[in-house]
C-alpha cells in the first residue's frame, strides 16, 4: 500500500484561494487505510471547507483513485456537480491525484502528502526494509540491510557516532552496524567484516528511467507500444 497524510488545512485553503466552489474526491483504498482520504475524512473536509466559506458542490469516495477507469465510471452521475465546481480537491496519494488530473478536465488540488515508506511496503509488521538497490549486499551483512538499518546507509561498517548501541540520530534507533555485528557473530560469520564492498552503483539505486518517465510498466498500456518522447 501507499501511505499518505493530509496536508495542513491552511495549505489546502491556500490552493483554493480565489476559488468559490470545490468538489471533493476521496479514495477507499490506501488513503482510507492511511486515515487521510476515506469517507470519514472527506466528510470532515467538507465541513471545514464550508466553515471557511467555500461551496462544496459534491463529494464522492471511489475505490482506488489510482485506476483511471474507476475514476471515470465513479464520477458518472456526478458530472453536473463536478462541472459546477471551480476545482477538485483530491484526498489521496500522489498516484491517485495524477490519475484524477489525467482523467478529468478540471483543476485538481492535492489534499495529501505521500510519505516515503523507507523501503517497507506500507504499514508492515516486520522491521525489515528493502531499498530496492539492485545490488543486494545481504550476504555480507548477516541478512540485515546496511542501506536501511544504518541512517547513513554505510556499506563499509559503523561510523563512530553510536552510543550504547544506539544511533547518534536518535536514542530510539539501534545502530544498524551493531545489529549486523551481533548477527554475524551469532552465525559465526565475523569474517564477513573483512570483505571490502565496492562503492554502490547509484545508477541501480535510482528508479530506472523507463520506470519514472513512461508508463511502460502500467497495465493499461500492456498491449500498446509505448513511445518515449
Amino acid at each position, binding site marked *: 500500500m501507499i501511505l499518505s497524510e493530509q496536508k495542513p488545512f491552511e495549505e489546502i485553503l491556500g490552493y483554493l484561494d480565489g476559488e468559490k466552489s470545490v468538489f471533493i474526491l476521496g479514495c477507499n483504498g490506501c488513503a482510507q487505510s492511511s486515515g487521510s482520504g476515506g469517507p470519514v475524512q472527506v466528510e470532515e473536509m467538507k465541513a471545514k471547507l464550508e466553515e471557511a466559506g467555500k461551496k462544496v458542490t459534491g463529494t464522492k469516495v471511489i475505490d482506488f483513485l489510482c485506476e483511471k477507469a474507476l475514476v471515470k465510471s465513479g464520477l458518472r452521475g456526478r458530472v453536473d456537480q463536478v462541472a459546477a465546481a471551480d476545482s477538485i480537491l483530491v484526498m489521496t496519494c500522489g498516484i491517485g491525484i495524477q490519475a484524477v488530473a489525467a482523467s478529468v478536465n478540471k483543476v485538481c488540488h492535492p489534499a495529501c502528502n505521500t510519505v516515503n515508506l523507507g523501503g517497507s511496503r506500507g504499514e508492515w509488521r516486520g522491521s525489515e526494509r528493502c531499498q530496492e538497490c539492485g545490488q543486494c549486499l545481504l550476504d555480507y551483512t548477516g541478512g540485515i540491510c546496511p542501506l536501511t538499518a544504518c541512517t547513513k546507509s554505510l556499506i*563499509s*561498517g559503523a561510523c563512530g557516532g553510536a*552510543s550504547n548501541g544506539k544511533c547518534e540520530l536518535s536514542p530510539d534507533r539501534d545502530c544498524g552496524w551493531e545489529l549486523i555485528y551481533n548477527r554475524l557473530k551469532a552465525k559465526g560469520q565475523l569474517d564477513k567484516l573483512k570483505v571490502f564492498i565496492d562503492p554502490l552503483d547509484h545508477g541501480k539505486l535510482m528508479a530506472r528511467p523507463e520506470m519514472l518517465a513512461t508508463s511502460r510498466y502500467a497495465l493499461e498500456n500492456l498491449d500498446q507500444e509505448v513511445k518515449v518522447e
Partner: protein
Amino acid sequence: MSLQSKLESGKFAITCEVGPLKGTDIHEVEENAELLKGKVDAANVTDQQSSVMRLGSLVTSHVILQKGLEPIYQLVCRDRNRIALQSDLLSAWVLGIKNVLSITGDLPQLGDHPEAKAVFDLDSVTLLQAIGKLNNGTDMNGNELQGQPSFFPGAVVKVESDTEASMELQIAKLERKVAVGARFIQTQAVYDADSFGKFMKRVEKFKVPILAGVIPLKSAGMAKYMNRGVAGVSVPDDLIQKMTDATDKAATGIQICADLIKQLKPLCQGVHIMAIGWEKRVPEIIQAAGL
C-alpha cells in the same frame, strides 16, 4: 620536515586543528597559522564540522599553507558525491596540499541545515580507496589522469567504545582503512592512557602510525557535556573532580592535557591536539608536555 617524513622516519609527530569559521573572515585562521607554524608538524583543517556550514576546508588548507603551516585537508563524504570528491582532491594537489584525512561525516540532522540531503556516495573507506587510485594515476573508474597526485592519506578511529560490537566494528574498519591505503591514523579524544595502551596492543599489527587525540579540558561542565553527548569520549571522574576543584581552570586543564600527553607518548607515534577554540594555547600545551 613534513608530517609524512616525520612519521616515516619514526619521529614523534604533533598535529592540531584549525577550524574555519562561518563567513569570509580569515584573520583568526591566519593568526593561528602564524602562531602554530614551527610548533606543530601539521594542522587539520576541519570540513563542515558537526554538519555546520562554514568556510571550506580546501580553501582554508590553502590559506594556512601560504602562511607556512602544513595542512591536513579533511574531507567528509556527507556533502559531495564521488565526482566532486575526486575533483576537489585534484584541486587540493594543485594547490600544494599533500595530507588528506578521509572522514565519513556526521548526519546533516545534527547541524545547522538539518533539511540538507546527505550524500554519503562514498564513505571513509571507499574514499581512501579512491585516493589510492588517484595516487596511481587513474580515477575511481580506471580512467587515466593527466598529471597525478601523491597524497599522504590518513583516517580516524574511535578508541573508547561502550559495546563489544562498537569496539570490534571500529577495529575491523581500521583494518580495512589501512588495507585500502591509510598511512596515518588520528584518534578520537583519549583521557585514559591504560585503556589507550590496550587499544594500541590490538592495532599494532596493522603497522600504521597512530596519533593519539587529546582535548584540553576547559571546565568540569565541558567534560560532563562530552561524556553525555560525544560518542567515544569518556572523561574519568577523577579528572572531572580536579577541574571542579581547580581555581585556575585553564592552567589545570592544560596541565592535565600535558600530563596525559607524557603518558601517551611512549605508546604511540604522535599526538593530535584538538584545542577547540584554544588554538593559541597549543604551544603552551606542547611546552608543558615537554615535546
